[in-house]
Every structure is written in C-alpha cells, then in structure tokens.
C-alpha cells in the first residue's frame, strides 16, 4: 500500500510549526500505524534528515504514551483503541493521512508530535490517591466489596491517562480523566475517608492547569481508547455536590483531609 502523509513538524516549544508532506511506499497492511511511521523515519535517517518525533512505549495500548491526532481524531478513526493499536489495513490504499499532535493549552508541544502532558500528573498529585502507609494493612478480604461495585471501579480505573479526551474536547477539558480517577476511588470503601476533600482538590488543580470546562459534547467518550463512560462525569458532579454539602455541614476550622498538601 502507499500513503501520503501530512505530518506536523515543529522544532521546539517556542518555534512555529507546519505540515510537511511525506510519501510512505510499500506499506504492509499488517503494519501498525507506528511501524509505518518507523519506516518513514528509517528512510529520513538514511537520507540525513531529522526523523519525526512521536511518543510510544508499550505499543499495546496500555501505557498511554502514544498520542497522535489522525485525520482530526485523537488515536485515529477506530473506537476503543490507541494509536499503537491501529493497523494500516484500516486505511484505503493511496489515502492521504494527516498527523498532528494533541492540541491543548495545558499540553505544550515539545517537538513535532510530542507534547508535555505533565499537567495530568499534577492533577493526580492534588488528591488522586489514598493516604495509607506501607505496612499494617488489614487482610485483603477484611472488607468485602460486591462484584458489581468492584467491576464499576475497575471500569473507571482502566483510564490510561493518555489525554485523548482533552485533545478531542473543544474546551480542552480534562473532565473525563478526572471523573475516572475520582470515581474509581469514590466507589471503593478504601477511598471513602478522603472522598470529600479529594474531588474539590482535583477539580481545583484541573482549573489551575488551564484545562477548560465540560460542555457536555461527549467528544471525550468517543475517542477514549478505554471507553471510559461519560456516566463517570455525572458521578464526578455528584461527588462535587456531595462534598460541598458535607463540607458546609462541618465546623469551619475542620482540617481538610489533604491538609498536609496545602
């Protein structure tokens, strides 16, 4: 198969970028999208040109490193997969394919197709954890958790933190990501003690990082490789409301569960 690729090239964060056209010849339909790009890069290297920078690691859809907008869609045209799980047989022979980086204010470009997604990690640090020390945990079966509840928590916990939801959203909102994290912990008994403080802290961090607000368009769900459901955004909103009510019922000088981190 043969393809024409329009690839976004940008030397660094503070430099302008532009599309450059490359031809990919003799592409095997069984190649993954990233292997096809590897091939392009091998040719560029031999010709003494700079290869196209893009991120990847596991190449099996779980690490969340790969991050390309393909023909306008984060992770490409198929549902429920990452870029590294996309195969060339999916495209018609001779197609022109446009490849861009994630675009969002909170994700500055580092080079070509590589962006800085550390904002998501800073949101995690604001409260996406259970503060338990190592050692002294009770037996794993001491608290029973219903199968359905565990499964729903697992649905939320499947998020790979890739940021496609942000890239797909007109407002570059990180609501689906935050919703997944908050819901996972709110659904489990272990997450309950810090439930009230967590949601506010994470939403505040999200705003601080420059992510936009949710416009209920659900573009996020459509591109999410792990099919994280927008139902969790509803859970997030409920958690937020609930926290407001609980907090207003507390004496005003009560310590936030994340007091240490303030």
């Amino acid at each position, binding site marked *: 198969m043969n393809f024409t690729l329009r690839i976004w090239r940008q030397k660094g964060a503070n430099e302008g970028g532009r599309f450059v056209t490359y031809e990919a010849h003799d592409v095997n339909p069984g190649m993954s999208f990233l292997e096809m790009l590897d091939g392009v890069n091998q040719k560029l290297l031999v010709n003494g040109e700079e290869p196209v920078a893009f991120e990847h*690691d596991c190449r099996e859809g779980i690490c969340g490193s790969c991050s390309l907008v393909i023909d306008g869609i984060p992770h490409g045209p198929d549902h429920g997969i990452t870029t590294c799980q996309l195969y060339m047989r999916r495209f018609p022979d001779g197609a022109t394919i446009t490849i861009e980086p994630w675009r969002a204010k909170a994700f500055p470009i580092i080079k070509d197709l590589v962006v800085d997604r550390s904002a998501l990690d800073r949101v995690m640090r604001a409260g996406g954890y259970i503060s338990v020390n190592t050692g002294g945990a009770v037996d794993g079966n001491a608290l029973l958790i*219903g199968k359905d509840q565990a499964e729903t928590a697992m649905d939320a916990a499947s998020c790979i933190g890739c940021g496609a939801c942000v890239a797909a959203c007109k407002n570059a909102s990180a609501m689906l990501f935050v919703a997944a994290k908050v819901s996972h912990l709110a659904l489990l008994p272990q997450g309950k003690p810090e439930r009230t403080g967590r949601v506010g802290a994470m939403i505040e961090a999200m705003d601080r990082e420059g992510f936009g607000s949710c416009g209920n368009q659900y573009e996020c769900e459509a591109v999410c490789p792990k099919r994280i459901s927008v139902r969790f955004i509803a859970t997030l909103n409920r958690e937020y409301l609930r926290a407001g009510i609980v907090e207003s019922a507390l004496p005003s000088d009560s310590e936030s569960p994340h007091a240490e*981190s303030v």
Partner: protein
Amino acid sequence: MTKLDSKIPSGPLESKWDRHRFSEKLVSPHNKRKLTVIVVGTGLAGASAASTLGQLGYQVECFCFQDSPRRAHSIAAQGGINAAKNYQDDGDSVGRLFYDTIKGGDFRSREANVYRLAQISGQIIDQCVALGIPFAREYGGQLANRSFGGVQVSRTFYCRGQTGQQLLLGAYSALCWQIERGQVTMRPRTEMLDLIVVDGQARGIVVRDLVTGRISIHTAHVVVLATGGYSNVYYLSTNASGSNVTATYRAWKQGAAFANPCFTQIHPTAIPPSDAYQAKLTLMSESLRNDGRLWVPKMPGDTRAPREISEGERDYFLERRYPRFGNLAPRDIASRAVKAVCDEGRGVGPNGHGVYLDFAGVVEQHGLDVVSERYGNLFEMYHRITGEDAYHAPMRIYPAPHYTMGGLWVDYNLMSTIPGLFVIGEANFADHGANRLGASSLMQGLGDGYFILPYTIGHYLATAKLPPVTEDHTEARKAHHRVLNRMARLLAAKGRRTAASFHRELGSLLWNYCGMSRTKIGLKLALSSIPTLREDFWRDVVVPGTGDCFNQELEYAGRVADYLEFAELLCHDAWHRQESCGAHFREEYQTGDGEPTRDDTRFAHVAAWEYREGASPILHKEPLAFEFVQPTTRSYQ
C-alpha cells in the same frame, strides 16, 4: 576484585527474615531527613520503594525516562500477581509457593530469598487492596483467584487482563502522595547514563534531561536501581520499546557483578512475527492456556486449513509429552516444545513459525459467550493485529523473549557488589533462578520495594561511613566525562546505517544462537560476530541532530551501543554453563527424548561476572546450597 558474600542469615528457613530484621540497625527519624536516596525507575519495584522510603522520612530523588512514572513497563503486565493466601483452601501455603518457585526456577535460586518472598506475598495483596486496587471479586465480595502456568493451585490475583496497570497506578498514587508531601522529588524524562562510585561506595548518578539534553550530576547517600529487564537485547520482545539494559550495564562497568545474564525467559504464547518491519511482539496472556489446547499437524508440511485436519491427524504435543500438566506446563518447557515441533517442519503459518492454540473444545463445551467473557479482550486484540477471528479458527502463537531472570547480583539485603548500590525488581537476578513462574514478577517487584528494601537500606545507612560528596568530586567529574565522550562519539559517527538496523541484526544473531536453545558452536559464532558488528556500529551509525535538545534517536543509539556490548556478556554466560537448566537449554545436554539435563555437581551456582576493561569478564561463583529442599529432576510429565 569482586567478593561474593550472600549474607544469608543462618538458622531455620521460616525465621531467617524475622531474625534478620530484628538484628538490623535502624536510622533514627531525626537522621532520616538528612539522608538522600536516589531511586532510578518507577515500575512496580521503583515506585513502591520510592514511596515507602519517602514515607519513612528519607529525602528521595526518583528518575524515569518516560514522561510520567505511571508509564513504566510494569503497566503492561496482564495476567496477575501470586500470593500464598490460600483463600481458595486448595492446599496452598507459604511452603508450597516457596517450593513451586524454587522448582519452577530449576533449583538455581537461593532458598532464603525465595522463602522470604513467599512469606511477604500475602502482605503485598493487603497493601494493594488498601491502596484501592480494584482486584477481581467473587459475588460474595471476596477476592477472586485464578491459576497460572506451572502450578496446581489458584493463587493468582488479577484485575481483568490489566493487573500490571492497576498495581502500577496504585504504586504511583502512593508515590504521588509522597511527591506532594515533598518527600520525593520526581524527575521524569530523565535517563541515567552512569554511576558515580566514590571510595568504593555508590554515591550518585549522571543523567541526561531528555527534553533539554542537559547532562547533570546527582549525588546521594545511596543509589537504588529499579530499571527493569533487558529482553529487548533480542530486538523483538514483548517488552515496551523503551526497556533497556543501559542503567544496569553501566553499573556493571563500574564494578557491580552481573549474575546469570543468559537466563532469559522465552514466553510461549506471543503472536508470531509476521515481517521484517515488525518492531515488537505482542504477548497473548498465559491464561489462554487454561482453556486453549496447543497442537500442530502430525504430518510435516501440512498446509491444509486447521479445521480440515481431523483429530487423528493432530498432535497435541504438550498433552502428549507432559500428561500431568498438559497445556499448563511451565513457560520454558512449553516454549521449547513449540520450537521442537516447528524444527520438525510441523509449524504452521508464514515460515512455519507458529503452532495452533485452539479453543474449539471450550466453545463447544461452554459456548461462545463464556469464552468471550473470559478472553474477549484477548481475542479482540488478536483479531486487530492479525486480522483473524480466533472464535472460529485456532490462534497461531510462537515464543518470544519476555523476561530476564538474570540481572545485577545482589546479596540477601538486595545490595550489589558495590556497597550502597541496591538493585530491585527485574533488574536484579535474585528470586527466579533459571526460569520465572507466571505472576511472580509483580510479586517480586512489589515485595522488594514495599517490604524488603526499606529495611535493609536502613541498616546500610545506619552503619556505613558516608562522608559528604558533592558534584565537583573527581569521581563525579569523571563519570560526567564518560557520558559526554560517549555521546560525542555517537554524534560524530555520521554514518549511513540506522541504530535500528544494527539492533535488528544483533537481535537475530542472539535469537538464533543464544535464544531458546544454545550450542557450543552457535555461541562461538555469536561471540566472534558481535565484536565485528559493534565495530561497524561505531563506524557507520547515523545519529542526526545534536545532544543539547530532545533527540530520540540519540537516546536509542546509546541503548543499542550498550546492547552491542552486553550481548557478549550474555553469550559468555551461556557458553560457560555447560548444562541445561530452566530457560537455558544447551543442546549438548539433553536426554534421549529431548528433556534437559541439569548438572548439579558442576553448575549449582550463581554465575556472577566481573567487568574488566578490554578483556574477557571474570567469572565468580556463588554456590547454591539446598538445605531445605532436595533438588530433583524437574519433571512435569
């Protein structure tokens, strides 16, 4: 001169660890704040260690090359994590997990280490549950278990097919807490390129910021490597593309002994390679072997479609050769059996590199729905990659390099032969002997990081003399120079071949001569070809751009350069071990019907190699004493 002292405590197996912990010196809380620890790596081992050390009050500086700690290779583990909880009441116990692991490793691991791991395995699960890891549950709300290759009890805890992901996100969340508290300074997108050794003690590292290209020196009181395995030396493996040997290899060059480098696990159930462009192999979870049956046609060269081959014309080779374990035979045994039938010309698919993994039986017995509930995501993945539908025709699978039992030598305290350099997780050699059982690596990584290292590192810090070392120390400067020189050489080559093409060539050399089976002649050939390939590399590699910016090709070329040296060490080790044990199969040492023959009189030792500049490495042997189990012929028939 390297001296190996395993520091295994004396006395009964059951109480070694308790007594050892009690005899260890503690660091007072007040002093912990003044002590700095470098942790390289944020997989299960590194993240659990860094967060626990931070929680204890040490000042931790933690590094990884990915953009976020949570993307470490551990994220990809699918199947599960073992623990001797005996929740199923099916006869499991600490003793049984210990025995299974020792036997699975073909009696090439230390009893004391393995017993300790089995002892703490239950605590690991408790800790993970406390961190909010959504393990699979039964309807009654209890934790669910499944069985995994090579054992006859159900002791594997899992989160669908994403156990590694959930365990890592849990460990990462604990790390987040310590970063937020200011106990851990996290440096992602930073690659360790050398180790700083001062007066015989590990005191720091040299790193490159992968975004700015800046090289910097970081000193500390103690250094922990949790940098994972090196299966990617074979080019094609199931590992993430960034996994590499650089950190451990460069520590080796500074004096840390490397143990059993030739013990590399080839996993039986990966999707077969299809073409030269292929960059990685995808693992199909071992859990498929619980229900799938492996077979090939009886007749060589039979190219009929699988469904046209009648029962009588099929060879269910694992069931035939290993009736007691059948399709659940351990990985090394299953992989070799696959290779054997393919070598007989009975392999299926392109190039005859494949065997069938057939689900027709379960589909018939339980229906499509049950199969889809159990393995739906795996069948989907198989379909996406191969374009084939495994519900209606058998899958094709083939072995792939997967895990490295070898690694830096460590004593019972997880300290290498360089005082102050601790090594945990897949990066060390410790617990799996010559072959690792499924679901035991996650257990080991978390065991090392949460429950072992935090004790033993304290003893070292409480007892060692550690004068201040700053960035301008001569040894730090020297390490800095080594890094700069090596980078300059890579950039100066300006040749015409890409690093990937050298990597691929090295990989196929190793796969052919030091892969699933090894011979004296093949190893000799590999040992004579590798230096030539290495010279070609330095003369003809092309690395574009400069070192002072984001340059992925420079990162990669550096790793390939290390593989080109390390591969030789791997082959030396395979050459010296004139026996067949676990994953190491020397064709000269087998029985008439192709079963490996181990040689306990000559090779019941850990082979720990010492680096010598410009000469062959020196072999040191740590004898393995079996006081509590009797090494037997490892039979799964």
